[in-house]
């Protein structure tokens, strides 16, 4: 846990952030060029399979983000340190972005291959539930009336909400699904051609870099937001105590 926060702090530095931004840009550009122009089309699906190089990494980053929310929430509940709440909030926001992307890209892929934009398939339904859980998480953060309560409530939801992540991953195994089975994260060797796997791994790296970069930027904003909260809490405490002290003195 401590190492995760330290890594985020190092990445949060201005220079490291710029380097990471450049690496993200290069990685994404390489993914687009190789995914669209270099790697051959799929024998069965044709060109539309190229959506895999953005759809699958987007899902991976969504899972990664919610995993970080889960760990940071546990760390917050254990230590009560506001830094963990900041990590969880930043990661949840990015996770919602990538989870939405996953659903939109899946829909764009499903239309030509399955003949429908959306179907209540177990994988699609559990992913939609996952998105709703974390949209709820972000909404909860907006309605809580004090920073401490906001952090505690959202940490509890951050732990409970993660339960849906393994359910999404296993949904294609547990239930009959229109969605294809796992091709990379599965027991045994990946069932995918070498050039496609290499492109997919490149995309995984590029999207993970994008996550790290966005986390660093979002954490910086989180620190600023906490500073705007701070004057209010610091002002209210002495004012509440002053009458008690004056009565005692009198």
């Amino acid at each position, binding site marked *: 846990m401590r190492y995760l926060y330290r890594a985020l702090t190092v990445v949060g530095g201005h220079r490291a952030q710029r380097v990471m931004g450049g690496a993200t840009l290069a990685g994404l550009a390489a993914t687009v060029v190789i995914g*669209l122009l270099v790697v051959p089309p799929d024998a069965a699906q044709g060109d539309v399979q190229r*959506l895999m190089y*953005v759809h699958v990494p987007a899902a991976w980053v969504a899972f990664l983000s919610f995993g970080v929310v889960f760990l940071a929430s546990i760390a917050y509940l254990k230590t009560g340190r506001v830094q963990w709440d900041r990590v969880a909030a930043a990661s949840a926001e990015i996770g919602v*972005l990538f989870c939405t992307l996953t659903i939109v890209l899946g829909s764009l892929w499903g239309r*030509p291959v399955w003949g429908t934009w959306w179907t209540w398939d177990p994988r699609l339904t559990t992913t939609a539930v996952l998105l709703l859980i974390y949209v709820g998480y972000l909404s909860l953060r907006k309605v809580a009336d004090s920073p401490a309560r906001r952090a505690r409530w959202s940490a509890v939801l951050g732990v409970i909400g993660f339960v849906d992540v393994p359910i999404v991953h296993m949904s294609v195994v547990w239930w009959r699904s229109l969605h294809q089975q796992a091709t990379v994260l599965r027991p045994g060797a990946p069932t995918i051609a070498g050039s496609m796997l290499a492109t997919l791994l490149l995309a995984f790296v590029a999207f993970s870099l994008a996550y790290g970069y*966005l986390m660093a930027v979002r954490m910086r*904003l989180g620190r600023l937001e906490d500073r705007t909260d701070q004057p209010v809490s610091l002002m209210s405490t002495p004012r509440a105590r002053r009458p008690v002290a004056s009565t005692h003195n009198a």
Partner: protein
Amino acid sequence: MHDVGYVAAGYAVTMAALVGYRWRLAVRTRRARRYVSTVSGRR
């Protein structure tokens, strides 16, 4: 040929979402920085 439209839309949506979110973060950071400097009375 028809499939290429879905692929192009997918890649365009992905890049637009990433760039859009980064831009939104920049706007929010600028606003928060301005607020902090106003409240604390220094930059």
